[in-house]
Structure formats: C-alpha cells, structure tokens
C-alpha cells in the first residue's frame, strides 16, 4: 500500500466486449453505488448484445465484503436468466480465505484462476495480449 489513499472508483466500470464475452476488470476499492451501477449496466449490455458469457476479473480487488459478494452473485443470477454464463476470475488468496470465514462461499458462482482460464471456461480463446491484467506473470 502506498501512503496516499488510492482513489476510490466511482461511477461506471468499463465493460469490454470480446467476441461473445463481456469482460469487466474491477480494481481497487469499489464504491457500493459503482457496484450496483455495474450490475445494472451488465444486465442491459447482455440483453442488448446477446453475449453468451461474462468474465469479471477481480485480481485487482483487495476485499470482497458481503455487499460486493451479493452483487457478484446477483450479476451471475441475472446473467443466467439472460442465457449468459458468468465467471469470476483471479480472486486473491486472502480475499478467498476472508470470504469463507465470513460465511460466503458463493456456490452459484463459477470461478477461474485467471482471465485466460476464465475465457477457456467460457469456451473461447483468450485474446493474444491484454495489457494491464495484474496476474500475467510468466506461466
């Protein structure tokens, strides 16, 4: 952690379309309203574009509390109703341990180790290079 407070993310989180998949990269500390906005944006984008998968990269997220946990679970549930699969990728060990201790195992959620593995899970090859993904050390 740097000394200065990192800027909280407010407003819209960018949603990228990669073929048949929507890719969302969450970073830093998420505002409650931003998370809710994302949930709404995703529902609209899925129904508008008819994509088959949603990939949420949370490797840059330092904590997931019950609120964000609920948002992720609801995104997956609403995507399912719109015939799209959701994969949450790159959860950090400390975050996973904390969520389990908190009592949230999010059983309805598909998970993957990395965005590449997530893409594979969604039945699509990962794009060749995608800069900015924090967990892309040499395999």
């Amino acid at each position, binding site marked *: 952690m740097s000394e200065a407070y990192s800027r909280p993310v407010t407003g819209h989180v960018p949603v990228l379309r990669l073929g048949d998949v929507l890719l969302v990269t969450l970073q830093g500390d998420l505002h*409650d309203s931003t998370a809710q906005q994302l949930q709404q944006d995703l529902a609209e984008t899925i129904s508008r574009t008819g994509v088959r998968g949603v990939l949420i990269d949370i490797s840059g997220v330092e904590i997931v509390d019950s609120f964000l946990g609920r948002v992720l679970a609801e995104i997956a549930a609403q995507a399912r109703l719109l015939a799209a699969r959701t994969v949450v990728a790159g959860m950090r060990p400390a975050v996973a341990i904390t969520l389990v201790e908190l009592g*949230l195992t999010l059983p309805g959620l598909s998970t993957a180790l990395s965005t590449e593995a997530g893409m594979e899970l969604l039945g699509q090859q990962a794009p060749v290079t995608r800069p900015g993904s924090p967990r892309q050390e040499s395999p």
Partner: protein
Amino acid sequence: MHTAAGVEACLPIRSDMDLVWVRQHVRQAAARLGFGLVEQTKLVTAASELARNTLVHGGGGQMEAVHVSSGGVHGLRLSFTDEGPGIADLDQALSDGYTSGNGLGMGLSGARRLVHDFDIESTPGAGTTVRVTCWAAQPPRPREEV
C-alpha cells in the same frame, strides 16, 4: 516503532463514500501495526460490514480506531457507534442469515468470525456500539524470536 500517528482516528460514517475511507484507513493502520496480509484483509472486511451496518441500520455514525497493545503484541480496536433505532433482539441479529436490510444476512455474524474480540451493546431507541479488536501476532510467531 509503532506510533499512534496514522493508526488512531475517528471517521464519520455518513455516506457510502465514507465506507471507502473507513476501509482504507483500517487497511493502512493494520499494515502499520504489522498485520499479515490475511489478517489485514479480514479486519478490513469486518470493518466494511460493520460500517455498512452503522450506515444502513443506524442511520450513520462514526468509527473510532485505537491502537492497543498487550504483552508486546499490537492490536487495533475499532468502535462503530450510531444513534439509530438500536437492535431489539441481539441473538437474532447475530445469527447467520438474519437480515433486515439488503445484504446476505452475514453482516454481524460474519464480522464476528473475522476478528479476535467482538462486543456489542445496543439500546432500542438509543443506538448501537460494536467494538472489535484484532491482534497482529497470532501463533505462528515471527522467526527472529528464536
């Protein structure tokens, strides 16, 4: 050594923006007191749950962070205070799955599992105070002690 600077603070909890400040303060304070990554994450998550309770159920309030130490071990005590409606049935509020708001019903009971000490006082009509403490050193002690 560890000083109170950057650890002790009193932060308002009035909006969901304030929740972000609470989380960031708790993370920095815990890091400064030598908490491991997992303990940091647990405490920040607990603080996030409790601060949201203060905001959503207590109608806003504040968090006070205090540096505590015992037997050479550093800890962080967080007190969340509101002057909201209070909780009539504490046992029920502390049980898994109970929710009066829009969470997964894991707020209080979950936060309790993430910290070492948990203490709640509530008077219906007068408000609620939740006090939690987390210690930096847990059994796997640092090597240099040997």
